């Protein structure tokens, strides 16, 4: 079985992100870049398929040359090979443009299964996995919190607000996973050492025959007109317990008001 895991380089999730006022994209200089943490769940799921079913796993990244350490990071978890799509024309692509490139890059590989994280921690659109499946004409099994492969059948538990649905399809298919699906391992030191010498192929949009009229900032369907700093955090409400039980009512009311219960 062949599995592909598309991963993304994102600004450090814990860092304070800034938007560059000139091109209205995230200012990459202002904060360290990392492998998107949601991808770690996709990688873990792929690693389990590797260990249980001898799957061959390739990581795919669309991003500039400087994003190569992120591919190596993904490889350090034990994946087999990497493909990186590097092309200046990709810069500024929106979710659809990115999906276009990813779909072409995936189509150039042989695979039975594509495992995405359900969202990236920078844009959080959740659009790309379904868009890629649509372009490739493959079943999309999104928001998976459980995944099972049996022969050429895949079953996932698709998470939603009230629980989950059991969704099945044949392979090949595109899956996106949520963080409840597993507990990612740490890359081992051996994995880190081996990552340096794993095969990594670099492709351009030309190699992949991508229609460049659909990618890049000029062709983005999503346009950002304005941006603002996040409003400062409001101080929390302090509920004082005076022993009368009123505090409990206050807390319960608050939970109901915020729709937590």
């Amino acid at each position, binding site marked *: 079985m062949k599995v592909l895991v598309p991963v993304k380089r994102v600004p450090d999730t814990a860092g304070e992100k800034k938007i560059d006022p000139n091109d209205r994209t995230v200012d990459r200089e202002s904060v360290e870049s990392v492998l998107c943490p949601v991808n770690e769940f996709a990688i873990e799921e792929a690693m389990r398929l590797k260990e249980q079913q001898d799957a061959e796993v390739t990581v795919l990244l669309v991003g500039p040359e400087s994003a190569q350490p992120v591919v*190596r990071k993904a490889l350090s978890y034990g994946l087999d090979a990497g493909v990186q799509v590097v092309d200046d024309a990709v810069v500024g692509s929106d979710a659809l443009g990115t999906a276009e490139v990813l779909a072409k890059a995936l189509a150039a590989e042989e695979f039975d299964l594509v495992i995405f994280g359900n969202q990236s921690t920078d844009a959080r659109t959740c659009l790309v996995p379904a868009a890629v499946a649509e372009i490739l004409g493959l079943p999309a099994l999104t928001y998976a919190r459980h995944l099972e492969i049996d022969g050429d059948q895949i079953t996932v538990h698709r998470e939603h607000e009230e629980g989950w649905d059991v969704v099945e399809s044949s392979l090949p298919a595109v899956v996106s996973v949520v963080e409840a699906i597993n507990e990612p*391992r*740490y*890359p081992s*030191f051996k994995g880190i*050492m081996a990552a340096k010498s794993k095969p990594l192929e670099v492709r351009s949009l030309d190699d992949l025959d991508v229609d460049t009229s659909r990618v890049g900032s000029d062709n983005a369907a999503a346009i950002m007109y304005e941006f603002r700093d996040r409003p400062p955090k409001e101080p929390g409400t302090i509920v004082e317990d005076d022993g009368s039980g009123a505090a409990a009512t206050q807390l319960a009311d608050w939970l109901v008001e915020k729709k937590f219960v």
Partner: protein
Amino acid sequence: MEFELSEEQRAFRDVLRRFADERIAPVARDWELSGRHPTEIVDGLAELGLFGILVPEEYGGLALDAVSYGIVFEEISRAWMGIAGFLGTHSLATNLLTRFGTDEQRRAHLPDLAAGRRISALGLTEPGAGSDLQGITTRAVRDGDAYVLNGVKTWLTNAAIAEPIVVLVVTDPTAEPRHRGLSLLLVDAGLDGVEISGDIPKLGYHGTSSHEVAFTDVRVPATALLGGEEGLGFKQAVSALEIGRVNIAARSVGLARASYDAAVAYATQREAFGHPIAEFQAIQLKLADMATELQAGRLMWHWAAAAMDAGGRSDLQTGMAKLYCSEMALRASLTALRVHGGYGFSQEFEVERYYRDAPLMAIGEGTSDILRIVIARRLIAGEALS
């Protein structure tokens, strides 16, 4: 001049920093105080591959360079010194086997030790001899195809569960100079006549157990003589344990960093006389000194480790780094405690643990004064400071 870690060294650091933050730091205080065995952490370290940190790759190890090795211990110690303790001793015992074991000894022990299926210990110190290692009295007498072992070792980290304990013994009491009469034996703690005490009660370093081990007429197979030749034990120990000084220096920096981080966090949040105490100059001076010394310590251990990695003699560098960093960590832990005021004395904060863990850094792997003597001897012998 380069002060940058390699991409791989950064990756090691990042994984370990995360492991320490997620898996060690959140439980360190509770487990340290309650004496709970850190089973899950030990398992995690094994999965990362760290039991084979100095073992050659052909035996399943990582064979890390000295800088990467130090990074591991700095990051672990920032979260909990006790965890660095048992792994450090194990790494040194495996280094002895790697460097001086016969092929057969290496094959018999290293794969299991690298995978963490077994753990090893180091038995040098005796009740009557620590700094003066040539003054040990544990005696091994050859009898047919075995050595008969008698004597007592103390302060042995890991000894209760170790297989093997690498034990320094006297094989020739008449040898001149004395070190030519010393040898190292790979002793299985399960052999008849080996008696191991419970964990020696101690100030800090909890999470790592320490034991007294008594040998009474223990028959150790002659094949357990490290390297297969008598009289080399002292030299083997001195040579393979040099990296232990990098270990302690790096650990000291990790502990100083934890102390510094705690002090800054507390100083910016605690108010007195209507101001965060970080606004008082007396506190600022402390923080500035801590940060400066900490950075000096880190550069020093990196420098010493890089000298080791370059090959050639490096005991001057490693001695200086160990001396400076351990004394610096002692100061840092006390300063962090002072910044915390009365709360520094409370077990609800982490700094009292740092303060209890720091002194060992200036005792184990050569006390500060012994290192000063080693350094001075090299200087007087004409070694120039590059």
